[in-house]
């Protein structure tokens, strides 16, 4: 596999993941607007959603005031928002075009058709189907594309795609935790009142991560901050947990480069796994969270850079 093509496929997978992450952020912020506490707080989780996507500064410099319908337009339709749904669809399709000869016809058509449909998105459609309608459409398209990848040859390509998805998920997890958890921890470590706003904010975090169902299946008790963090960081089988994605990174690098040619990036991936495994969750709920999450983001970026330098150039 050409290193250039591998790099494009890596980014194809990252944009695919980013597109779905962005859709879930939309769902999280929109669902929050239907809660009683949002009547007096219209900004709600919109700034959080933008901050997690890394686009708050861009939004404020270009559009100014945070206002729900404007943020929704920005997160869905704005072609210059690099995390926006339309921009992600375009970027993943552009990357896929360079690797079209490696993709199955069905994979390419699923990607291309998604892009064609995405171009039909406009304000009228948004008003017609609502935010949740757009979210459902986006997630379905992303999952359809991923499903088509099942038919790819089991050569280097699926591993490159896996790596892109895992790096993007790990990055997203670190970002959303950094934004949402510190304010929640100010309310203490005790199980929050089931019907109160703090509990609902923890739920919003799970919605943003796509881990609501994982939580339901796994929980043995009420929504306890330590247990929620343990689930997000260390769950051994949930496709959205940090640990699973960090492990995927090492497996994927070994898969496309070979066990003895993983280089520094493989070493970083293994070290990353050890770093996550060593997470002391109760300590993170105290003072250590910021340091831990900063280290995560740094490692993710370092890994991305190293993989690019070693394997995709």
């Amino acid at each position: 596999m050409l290193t250039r093509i591998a790099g494009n496929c890596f980014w194809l997978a990252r944009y695919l993941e980013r597109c779905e992450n962005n859709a879930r952020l939309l769902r999280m912020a929109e669902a929050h607007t239907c809660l009683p506490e949002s009547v007096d707080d219209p900004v709600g989780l919109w700034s959080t959603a933008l901050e997690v996507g890394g686009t708050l500064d861009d939004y404020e410099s270009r559009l100014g005031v945070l206002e729900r319908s404007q943020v929704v337009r920005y997160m869905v339709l704005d072609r210059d928002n690099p995390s926006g749904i339309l921009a992600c669809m375009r970027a993943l399709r552009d990357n896929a075009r360079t690797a079209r000869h490696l993709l199955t016809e069905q994979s390419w058509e699923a990607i291309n058709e998604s892009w064609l449909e995405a171009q039909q998105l406009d304000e009228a459609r948004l008003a017609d189907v609502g935010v949740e309608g757009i979210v459902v459409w986006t997630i379905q398209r992303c999952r359809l594309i991923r499903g088509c990848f099942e038919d790819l040859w089991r050569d280097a390509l699926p591993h490159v795609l896996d790596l892109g998805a895992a790096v993007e998920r790990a990055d997203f997890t670190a970002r959303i935790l950094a934004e949402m958890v510190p304010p929640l921890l100010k309310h203490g470590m005790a199980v929050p009142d089931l019907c109160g706003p703090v509990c609902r904010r923890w739920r919003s975090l799970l919605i943003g991560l796509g881990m609501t169902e994982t939580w339901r299946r796994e929980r043995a008790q009420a929504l306890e901050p330590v247990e929620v963090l343990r689930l997000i960081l260390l769950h051994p089988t949930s496709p959205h947990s940090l640990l699973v994605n960090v492990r995927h990174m090492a497996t994927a690098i070994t898969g496309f480069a070979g066990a003895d040619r993983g280089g520094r990036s493989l070493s970083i991936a293994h070290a990353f796994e050890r770093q996550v495994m060593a997470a002391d969750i109760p300590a993170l709920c105290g003072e250590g969270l910021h340091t831990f999450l900063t280290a995560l983001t740094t490692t993710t970026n370092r890994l991305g850079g190293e993989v690019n330098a070693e394997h995709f150039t």
Partner: protein
Amino acid sequence: MSISTKAFSEMGPAGQPRPAYRKLQDWLTTVPPAVLNRRREEADQIFRRRGITFAVYGDPSAAERLIPFDVIPRILAKSEWDLLSAGCIQRVKALNMFLADLYGPQEILKAGIIPPEEILGNPLFLKQAVGIRQPHGVHAHICGVDAVRVGPDEWYVLEDNLRTPSGVSYMLEDRSAMQRLFPELFRSHKVGAIHHYPDQLLENLRACAPAGVDDPTVAVLTPGSLNSAYFEHVFLASRMGVKLVEGGDLVVEGDKVYMRETGGLCQVHVIYRRIDDDYLDPEVFREDSVLGCKGLIRAARAGNLTLVNGLGNGIADDKSTYFHVPEVIRFYLGEEPIIHNVPTWRCRDPKQLSHVLAHLPELVVKEVAGSGGYGMLVGPTSTREQIAAFADKLKANPANYIAQPTLALSTCPTFVSSGVAPRHVDLRPYVLSGRTTTVVPGGLTRVALREGSLVVNSSQGGGTKDTWVLEEDPC
């Protein structure tokens, strides 16, 4: 006691809406009927896609039928809800104490509050339940209180459903649908959240596990996918994150209940069963039942299993016991009932029977063990022939019937083919009992979609509405 015969309009007259409905009425004047119609179609698509269906037994064409969903919410002000919820909680607390007493020391019978023969001679009093210990004294962990409103602060309880009350999944799915279809309405109303219902339920089920079990395993027991409420069984198991089991998945060994899992047997400590008592355990009840599991009652009696709801709860929500609930509240809680019973004539009493027979055209007559709107007579909407035929049934077996005045159920604005029009509604709040007794703010509003109809049952053409409880009273 006199009950208004004119239906109370919950929204109030056009142009002068009651405070809780002001913003909604404004919104209704701006939203075109075509938009409401489109949203209703979208709601149908959502419900169909999610498989939110129920079955009507005896109608093969209705194996998976949608319950009509009305897109206009019902709104209750905080103060209105505070009254109703306090009344429901009071009632369920007393009924739990009543059940614990009936299957225990029977103090209420000894005190002469209820004639013992009425309880002990009732087939719904199950001797098999005597002596089974329910942790925290909770027999009715989930109770659906059917309430109707006839005035601003005037509610009546029609019945207490203490066995396997259904419909809570519709309450939660109706809310999800409304949030998707009309998010803008939630941004202008502080609507009390209800999505924590499954968490509250799970917390209670765990709290009611047998003594000494620190980390109990909970399961929902369903009769299977052909049951009319199967969707709800799946929904609750999934939202609580517990296993959904059928009778065949369970086995009792050494008075303990286990699920057969791929990794081996796994002990179950709490079973939220959605199977009637009769079918629960062929060792004790119907021998031909293939829905339950042999030995469940033995396990419960040995203190290794909590059955939810408890066994034999029918004795407390039977229409013939309903009559006594106000006294039950006074006896156990020393309080006056916050919400009243509907005045009820018990046809087993010859004097009351003759009154009923003389006033059939004005009354609603129900079978003592009936449900679902079947086997009843609604006098004011029945023909002379129907009334005469019902009178014959009544005379043949009077103890099988009770009669009540025809209540003018309140109306709420409802989107029907002719536009927005008032339709009669009732309300089923869900009261949960564990260490404490609570109720999520809302419930299932059932609406009679036919003009003038008072029958809200889904099996008889009724629909549902999202029920909003405002967190603050409007100024």
